[in-house]
């Protein structure tokens, strides 16, 4: 039994994957709560495609790819907020318009003979391919995101609760939304390198959605989301080790199972509560 727990840890690959998923799980738990409360799941899933044109542009002018990706994804985040506000559209539609246009532009730019093949793949990592650098970057940027979230906590809480009260409370709602989406974009940029696009979307949304079913306050929600993310991440990696299933996909399945468990628990709780009353 004990062996079964420690055996995977003797491999550097699983060890680094566990470290990466733990770090990103904690950050995702926190920012995921705002993604869920601000209904930003579409952004969380799609913004990663927005880094494509930046990536191609960087490759064409010979700038560092990561820098290009960062600029690309931040421009995408800004355009989403600006277009949404100007059009008076739901952010949903703004994301659809901005991301597909940018992605299309990226595809066209990538036609240039100077752009290397499989560019997007270069920035989209695999959980098992995590390097020590990835872990360090995740630790540093993750901490920065957590600090920013802590500083903004009350304002995010107030505006999420009642956006109309923003101006009266001296909180510029547009700027706050922009900062939040910027933080989401930053998290995605760091996380896609370690986890890949599929897993990033899952870990940003899944744990927070599960935590929301079980908790009624934001701090406990964040803690629960972090715990769910880390638990599912570890469980997924162990499943991938013993069942030999694709690592990232296994973590995603574990995350979804956690959500379904939480939904069942919430249902049960409501039923018993209803019976008691």
């Amino acid at each position, binding site marked *: 039994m004990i062996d079964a727990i420690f055996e995977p840890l003797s491999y550097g690959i699983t060890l680094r994957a566990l470290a990466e998923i733990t770090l990103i799980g904690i950050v995702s738990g926190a920012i995921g709560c705002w993604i869920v*409360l601000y209904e930003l799941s579409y952004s969380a899933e799609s913004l990663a495609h927005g880094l494509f044109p930046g990536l191609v542009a960087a490759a064409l002018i010979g700038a560092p790819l990561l820098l290009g990706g960062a600029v690309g994804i931040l421009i995408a985040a800004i355009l989403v907020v600006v277009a949404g506000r100007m059009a*008076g559209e739901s952010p949903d539609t703004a994301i659809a318009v901005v991301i597909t246009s940018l992605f299309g532009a990226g595809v066209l730019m990538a036609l240039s003979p100077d752009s290397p093949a499989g560019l997007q793949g270069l920035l989209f990592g695999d959980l098992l391919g995590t390097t020590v650098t990835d872990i360090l970057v995740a630790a540093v940027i993750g901490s920065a995101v957590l600090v920013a979230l802590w*500083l903004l*906590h*009350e*304002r995010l*809480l*107030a505006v*999420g*609760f*009642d956006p*109309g*009260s923003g*101006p*009266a*409370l*001296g*909180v510029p709602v547009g700027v706050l939304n922009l900062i939040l989406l910027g933080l989401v974009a930053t998290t995605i940029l760091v996380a896609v390198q370690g986890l890949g696009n599929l897993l990033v979307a899952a870990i940003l949304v899944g744990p927070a959605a599960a935590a*929301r079913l079980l*908790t*009624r*306050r*934001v701090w406990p*929600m964040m803690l629960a989301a972090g715990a769910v993310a880390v638990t599912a991440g570890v469980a997924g990696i162990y499943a991938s080790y013993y069942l030999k299933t694709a690592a990232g996909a296994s973590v995603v399945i574990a995350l979804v199972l956690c959500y379904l468990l939480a939904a069942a628990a919430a249902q049960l709780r409501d039923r018993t509560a209803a019976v008691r009353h």
Partner: protein
Amino acid sequence: MDAKLSDGERHRSASPGSGLRERPGRKLIEALDLAIGYDGRPVLSEVRFEAWYGSRIGLLGPNGGGKTTLFRALLGELKPLSGSLTVEGASATVPQSDRSRLDYPVTCLDVATMGALARLRWWQRPTRGDRAKAAEALGTVGMGDRADDSFGDLSGGQRQRVLIARALTAEADLLLLDEPYTGLDSKSAKRLDRLIEELAGDGRTVMIATHDVEQAQGWDRVLCLNRTQIAFGPPDDVLDRKVLEATYGGHIVEIPGEPGHGVLPPHHHDHEDPVHRDPAHGELP
């Protein structure tokens, strides 16, 4: 303290909320030939009135008559298109409680504490002192014992009072209540009446948007709006049939036995802000 008025400008006092009790009888709001609107098109014009600390002002008017627009101007969200609007002191809004997100994971104390943000610089976070102040505000509105309850678990009237507590934590001199009586039972409505009276007694000005003409008669002033200002003054002087008809465009349903009084026909939400209005609405084939 009174700043010089200038066209198209809106002034705020630099020291909001200080010494409320000492200042009854002082002017809090002054609107001079005010016109407000969106994208250069006025929604509300020819508004001229003034209000004093410690008064209760009823705001009457049909949907689309300009009530929400006036609120937004008083909050500083909209700049006057012409004329001027001066608010000495801080203002806070109390939205309709049935529009708040009931599944949002916050306690009453959390909500009340949000008000403190209005007094803080952007990098400051609410302190323990602010939370104490919020708890005190909850006590003021009679919700002191529910501080740790989830906001979503409260009744409509209770939510209303928590939102008022939020405005109190913001130390607002001017409270803007958007149809606060909607959906309240008579007991809660009486309670809210008393609370509004207390707040006014403390020197705060409370402006209440309402459809209930009868209720407005109990307050210090009424302001009737329908795209322009129809009337402003003590309710007994102002609320006659002619004014009400001008305010509501003739759509008055008489209450039998009470000539001159009326209530509005079917209630619908008041929404004048084109940014938030869904263009597809109101076009049911």
